[in-house]
């Protein structure tokens, strides 16, 4: 509940999108050290002695991508049950042990990976690591715990339906990723979660909770050798042997606009508009990030905010993002506006997408975007959890620990012509997915 490092890896990765906005000038020393443990875990450590605390983020390749097609929600339920009882500790003993020392231990499934987050005072690091190892290696998935957790997850799924922004985002993902795991919510559906059996959970845990492919980033009052010793003592019994995984094929590109309009008794239309984006290894990644900053990623500096919020007063929150998940990326614009202005706001979004394709951005816009993206680096890494998330991101996408040093030059190399080129190539104002949750009578969404 408190201080939990944001667990859901899609959030972690999204934050890391900003972390890739790094300039090298301020931080000269390497941020972390990297080592591979005997069982294959990649360990990244950033020693910070200012406070007696340790923050750790572990990414395990056990996300919802690996859900069997007929069992959506299995990865999430597995993750949710890790803390609900081990061979030697009951669910209550796990939470009492970590909370007694004022620490936190949380597990959250994303589409690509599942993230375990640990925060403890450094004097309690042994206890924290012992609990971490115990829930990873020895969860029991007791039948009564499964029953309990299924009820909680079902309630959460239903409560999510109360948030029109969530409903719109979920509908949008389903449009962009039909039949693909990215198009399904991590937590599954009420029916699919209720059908998951203990055998399913044991099988998923046995197959996918493996040290190979696991990344552990640790920041704080601890040294690398000390940490290696503590981890080898607790995790050496954890065996590699990940099953072969064939990434799902990328979904088909849209050939025309498609719309999903959901009726709700709401005052605002919750709008998500976009299409497939790019993965992290796309060579145009940096030009795309600069382009998106100008279009809708740069807050008040962006064209979407200038037009839709500042000039028209149509929305409190409008923006765009390119999210690079592991096997496919997404481009999306999201905004909320009163039902009556939904139609005009959507048209304004499309007009801005067209404009950045058709006309070169100004030198001033490009200069400002670069200045922000490169100059805001120190703010990206001003807490332990941000550094841990950044280290895990850099490792997950194979960017190398020298990425910090390369980033500014990658951004500064982007030209006005690059912006227009990537806008034309990666923005599609003529073939997009649009999800709207609104009072449809007032919103006048054309179908």
């Amino acid at each position, binding site marked *: 509940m408190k201080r939990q490092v944001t667990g859901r890896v899609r959030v972690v990765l999204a934050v890391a999108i900003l972390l890739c906005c790094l300039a090298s000038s301020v931080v000269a020393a390497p941020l972390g050290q990297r080592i591979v443990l005997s069982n294959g875990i990649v360990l990244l450590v950033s020693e910070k002695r200012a406070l007696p605390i340790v923050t750790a983020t572990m990414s395990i390749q056990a996300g919802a991508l690996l859900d069997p097609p007929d069992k959506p929600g299995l990865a999430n339920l597995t993750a949710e049950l890790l803390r609900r009882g081990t061979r030697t500790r009951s669910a209550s003993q796990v939470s009492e042990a970590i909370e007694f020392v004022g620490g936190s231990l949380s597990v959250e499934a994303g589409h690509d990976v599942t993230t375990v987050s640990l925060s403890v005072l450094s004097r309690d690091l042994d206890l924290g690591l012992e609990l971490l190892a115990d829930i990873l290696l020895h969860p029991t998935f007791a039948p009564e715990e499964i029953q309990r957790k299924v009820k909680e997850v079902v309630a959460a799924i239903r409560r999510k339906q109360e948030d029109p922004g969530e409903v719109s985002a979920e509908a949008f993902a389903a449009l962009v990723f039909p039949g693909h795991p990215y198009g399904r919510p991590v937590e599954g559906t009420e029916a699919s979660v209720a059908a998951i059996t203990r055998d399913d959970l044991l099988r998923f845990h046995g197959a996918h909770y493996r040290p190979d492919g696991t990344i552990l980033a640790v920041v704080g009052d601890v040294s690398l050798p000390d940490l290696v010793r503590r981890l080898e003592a607790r995790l050496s019994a954890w065996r590699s042997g990940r099953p072969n995984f064939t990434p799902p094929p990328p979904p088909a590109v849209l050939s025309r606009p498609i719309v999903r309009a959901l009726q709700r008794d709401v005052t605002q239309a919750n709008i998500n508009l976009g299409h497939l984006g790019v993965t992290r290894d796309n060579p145009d990644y940096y030009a795309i990030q600069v382009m998106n900053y100008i279009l809708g990623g740069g807050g008040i500096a962006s064209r979407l905010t200038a037009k839709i919020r500042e000039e028209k007063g149509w929305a409190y929150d409008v923006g765009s993002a390119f999210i690079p998940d592991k096997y496919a990326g997404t481009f999306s614009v999201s905004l909320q506006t009163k039902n009556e202005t939904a139609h005009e706001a959507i048209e304004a979004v499309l007009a801005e997408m067209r404009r950045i394709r058709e006309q070169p951005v100004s030198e001033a816009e490009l200069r*400002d975007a670069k200045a922000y993206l490169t100059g805001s680096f120190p*703010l990206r890494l001003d807490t332990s959890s941000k550094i841990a998330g950044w280290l895990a991101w850099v490792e997950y996408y194979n960017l190398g620990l020298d990425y910090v040093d390369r980033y500014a030059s990658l951004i500064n190399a982007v030209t006005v012509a690059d912006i227009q080129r990537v806008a034309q190539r990666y923005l599609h104002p003529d073939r997009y997915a649009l999800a709207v949750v609104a009072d449809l009578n007032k919103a006048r969404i054309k179908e």
Partner: protein
Amino acid sequence: MSVRRGCRLGGKGMNWVVGLRALGALGHRPGAPLYRTIALAIGLFLLLGGMASAAGLADRVFETTLANGLKVLLVEEPKAPVVTVQVWYKVGSRNDPVGKSGISHMLEHMMFKGTPTIGPKQFSLTVQRNGGVDNAHTTADYTAYHTHFAADRVMLGLELEADRMAHLSLEEKEFLPERQVVMEERRLRTEDQPANLLGETVQAMAFLAHPYRWPVIGWMSDIEGYTREDLVRHYRTYYTPNNATLIVAGDIKRDDLLPKIRSLFGHIPRGPEPPKVTTVEPPQRGERRLSVKKDAELPLVLAAYHVPNLAHRDTYALDILAYVLGGGESARLHQRVVYEKQLASYAVAEYSSVHVDRHLFWLSAGLLPGKTAEEVEQALSAEVEGLQREPIADRELQKAKNQIESEFIFAQDSVRGLANWLGAYESVAGWRLLAGYLDGIREVTAADVQRVARQYLTPDNRTVGILIPTKPGVTAEGTRG
């Protein structure tokens, strides 16, 4: 944060803290999806409500007051090459005139709309051009502006804040669209969010007389009725150096900075003392109950009890009480109501202590399908009664103290965290109250916790609200264009 982090990253909707969702700070700009903004607000409030000082804090904070009354707090914290520049004005929705609820928050929005020196919209653009991020938030009791930079840009942050403290333009052509934006913000945060709507309604019933009864963002018809003159009056009345605190924390040298602060802010004239809020909420004499009906999936139960603020000696025991009830999955509400009885998917407690006047202690629970609000309410009451009947165990008391101390240490991981609670405390009661905070926590006994549970968590002192879901909408599909 001023730059978006992504659009379709859903939160799970679990562990919502209803009271704080309703009452937490309102930001000027979202920058992040709403749920994350809220999570940050909750984090701040946990920080503020749940913890406070440390040994040596008083030594780390340099305090001075300029001749015009501006309080200045400087903290040298060189562990990261960053700086936060913050100005906290002692004005919030408790100062909003009747019929103008939310005007403090509206003014916060207008503070980004320029001065004769820096044109409309240029404030944040200048910050971002310099690699910084800026934002602001308004609560019932204060309005805070915060700008974060790499440490070498500290002067820019100070210049911008000094300029808008004295010379805000408040032009009609900037005001009119921004009023629409604030109406959209209210729709986003409140109108279409069942939990927040319930929280707003409970708060409105819990306070009969005190301005805490209206929401920070204001009622929709009040927002719609603001005029430019309302804003000018509010700005002139409350945005004076003698009603503000400047905080600079991070990789700074105070001896270098102080003369520059004096030259930038020292010439701003002192204003008249702002009017005091004199209304005192009368004691509650009997339980109040209400329901809110809304398109929703599952009922919520929310109970609010009147309690003292952080300046009262009982604040420490109330903080412990909040942790015993709601401080995680091993806390009583989760253990009994969620885990053992399986009535709710979450059950939490929050103590809203960071207020100038007495505020509320909240219990809330989100029901599991098939359960009734009555049985959940009874289960919450049973936990309160248990605390009134028997003193808590030593280990339970120690756990709450450990959690609070640990939260305090973790809060110092960022200079913003430190500056945030200095600013909040200074704005409601004086930052030095922090210096004795952990000592106050350490002295709490099991008998103290039992006593405050008996004294404050009584049925006659509470307002109970139930969210009653109505029928959800229908679906239509089609293609566009």
